[in-house]
């Protein structure tokens, strides 16, 4: 069982590093999705370990939330792309103190 948890932690870390180092908003967003899926893996593994279905249920909720987040996220990224013709998060830097 702990192998699955380890894998989920590795995937989560890959996602987190990706968010921090990649500059393209779409890629950053994909890394967040990877982290969400890593969490899902942890949920189902723990569910199996504890022998109840709560964790599997949680995975379904997370999928729905992730889908809703995609809708919002892509809408925001596309609206920025239409103006600036780029999705780099470094170029979006008008707000500085």
């Amino acid at each position, binding site marked *: 069982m702990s192998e699955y948890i380890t894998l*989920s932690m590795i995937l989560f870390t890959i996602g987190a590093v990706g968010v921090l180092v990649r500059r393209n*908003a779409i890629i950053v967003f994909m890394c967040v999705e990877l982290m969400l899926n890593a969490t899902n893996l942890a949920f189902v593994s723990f569910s199996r370990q504890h022998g109840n279905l709560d964790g599997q249920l949680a995975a379904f*909720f997370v999928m729905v939330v992730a889908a809703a987040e995609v809708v919002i*996220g892509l809408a925001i990224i596309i609206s920025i792309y239409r103006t600036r013709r780029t999705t780099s998060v470094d170029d979006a830097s008008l*707000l500085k103190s």
Partner: protein
Amino acid sequence: MRASLMSAELPPIPAPEIEYSLLAPLMIIAGAAIVGVLVEAFWPRTTRFAAQTVLACAAIVAALADTVWVYTDLDRIESSLTARGQIAAEGAVSVDGPGVFAWGILLVFGLLSMLLFAERRLDGGLSAFTGRAADAPGSAAEADAVKRRLEHSEVFPLALFALVGMMLFATANDLLTMFVALEVLSLPLYILCGLARRRRLLSQEAALKYFLLGAFSSVFFLYGIALAYGYSGSFELSAIDTAVTSRTGSETMLLASIALMAVGLLFKIGAAPFHTWTPDVYQGAPTPVTAFMAAGTKAAAFMALLRVFFVAFGGSSWDWRPTIVAIAVITMFLGAVVSISQTDVKRMLAYSSIAHAGFLLVGFVGVYAGVAGSDRVTSVSSVLFYLAVYGLSSIGAFAVVTLVRDSGGETTHLSKWAGLGKTSPVLAGSFAVFMLSFAGIPLTGGFIGKWGVFSAAYSGGFWWLVVIGVLVSALAAYFYVRVIVLMFFTDPVGEGPTVAVPSVLTTVVIGVAVVGTVGLGIIPGPLLDLAQHAGAFVR
């Protein structure tokens, strides 16, 4: 054959019991948001904005009245001295004193924000939101949208969805509900941030930053939930509490879970070092949305933070208290010091909100639950009172910001505010009241709020933290007083600011905020009693 075998083996699924009368405030707001979406589809465009405004305000007033009714009807819990209320919806929602109190203040903030959303006199008869968000800023399509006087009235249902998310977040009794509530409150706010009519590039950028960082932090929160589930085998806060108290699982997993959930929650309240989004988003978002966010998100997230840490992780408070103390100190200092160097009013208010998150954390780490026969203010009630006062002054301050304008819309550079007190003393006077309340000067609500959180921290044994808190308050007061001096005793530069004449909506918001801020400073008794009466969380 196979199907009948399956049905014979599976246990029956009992229908869940939902306490509709207790949950009615949530359902009114959620229902009104859904009706709002239908109005968007079917109502004629000419009167849609007004219809949405009336629908949103009526729903909030109805929910508020029902919240009062639910609050007066809460049952006392036998096993606890102070807790009142009960667990509803099969353990998903905890309708208890602090939670229903939070509903009340969230609904009041929501109502005031809706009035700011509905203000249309400031920008030539159009709302503060963009006419058609899909158009690129500066394009011909945008000019066409302005010419045709288009307006996004979707902002009202979106705000109602965010409001129901906040209310659920403040009362969620299991971690899965809490996560869903977190997303229901965040997702509409991400969109609302990007909908400003003026300075649309800044607004879109704020939405992008808020979205990416918000999604990132909520994933941390979610992984924390997964580890808490792995540790205890349940999502319910009370079950996690049992596991934490009996120390059954792996210590590492528990600590990792606490840390990850803290990251997600501290991000939402804007505590250092997870505060970096706050100034950018507060500055870029349309000002009515900033007001809604500053007051509502902070209140909801603080209630969730308190609930998670007091109810679920209360048994390991010796593990997390040192870290939270450090974060409280850093947050207070950072917010106070950095706000001194700000030149933009909205950024300044954002850093001030960070400093206030620090003061609230001071009340929180006290973890003072009260003792029988003593009426010393508890951590939960002090935070509740502080949130009410802070939210009220903050909505008022942002309402003032919407009125100080030049040809390009709101003028938020501080130098433009010089001499405001000479041209429009009433407006500058109300802003001064909010500044004094933020600074915690006596006779304003902010003073009583600060007194409450410091008193709770003192009762919890953190006298040295109280000393630091008072010193930082003095430091922060310098800045707030500087703004007042700038408004009243400095000559205006060039033309000086123009103050738009608002409709009755914004006037009411500023009026209520001033009366509330001063009133709670002079007669804090009733609300403080109410907060103290709310008692502890129901487990």
